[in-house]
């Protein structure tokens, strides 16, 4: 391993490029599209479903430290956060705070 360079090269080649390429492709594909076209509606639906997919995936198959919190606690925290959002003036802030509070309380109560 050549120490100084290797992590930066890795960042560029396997961190930056594979991720950034989607943004560049987005510029190319989004160029000719009309704001009110049917395809933009479809793309918005795909984007929303993908974001929801990321939510489900991180909660069900979590990376690193989150895997130490029991699945039931993660699910209750997600559901409870969403309910807090719905019932507290549709405030995203309320949802995030309630979800985090439930996660931390649950992890403390039921172990990590």
């Amino acid at each position, binding site marked *: 391993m050549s120490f100084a360079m290797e*992590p930066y090269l890795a960042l560029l080649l396997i961190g930056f490029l594979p991720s950034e390429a989607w943004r560049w492709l987005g510029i190319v594909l989004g160029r000719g599209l009309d704001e009110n076209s049917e395809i933009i509606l479809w*793309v918005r639906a*795909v984007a929303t*479903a993908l974001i929801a997919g990321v939510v*489900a995936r991180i909660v069900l198959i979590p990376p690193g430290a989150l895997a130490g919190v029991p699945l039931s606690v993660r699910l209750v925290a997600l559901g409870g956060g969403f309910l807090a959002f719905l019932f507290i003036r549709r405030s995203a802030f309320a949802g995030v705070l309630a979800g985090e509070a439930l996660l931390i309380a649950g992890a403390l109560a039921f172990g990590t």
Partner: protein
Amino acid sequence: MPEPAFATSGTAAGAFLHGTRVALTSVFAFVIVFTYIGYGALCHDYGFSVGWAMLSTVLQWAGPAQVILVTGLGPGALVLETAIAVSLSSVRLLPIVVALLPMVRRENSRPWQLVIPAHFMAVSVWVEAMRHAPTLPREHRIPFCNGVGLTLLTLGTVFTAVGYYMQAALPALFGAAAMFITPISFLVSTARNARILLEKAALALGLLLAPVLAYAGVGFDLLWTGVIGGTLAYLLHRWQRHRQRSAKSSGPESSSTMP
């Protein structure tokens, strides 16, 4: 609701500053700070330098992909597998850029002028842009998005360093809590923006499909979640629109002639 604080007057610099204000008062200011303190600490755990950690936030600007890179770059790392995992975790960046561009672009925008605004695009910036940009005149929309994006990216980069140096002082649960803030904030902010059936259905379908496809061991499960869930939601939207139109066109007298 987006308030029409910044109406039809003003300059591009004003729109940029408006974006900065929106970013700083958004739930995502809190989310990004928390996320990147956790990320900085993670980088410290895995033995990366603080400069590398900050540069990875500037260059990647995609939380889940950054975590995959850091945890995947150990000794005996599988380079190609890690690159594919990073890429698949960032597929969402494609549709969010495509969905936003026609809303913010001007007639004479050249593709290279969009590279920087597109780089700022992340779910956090997208959510605020989709909320606020339609209330602004078109020529101010890109400066506004840049204001939101640069502000959150700067916060993320600074707090990557803060988390890096705070690593030893953070409670044991902090890492888990920081990783959980991504899904909970994505969920509630996307739900907040979902005003029509199209988006509500896409959100619900994505939540349901992702676990099914992941547990079934389907390759590229996130990609399929987006394509299948999004297409079903779109079809549902068309069906609803069709029903509303036919209900409108067939008034009470014509409906009485129906069989």
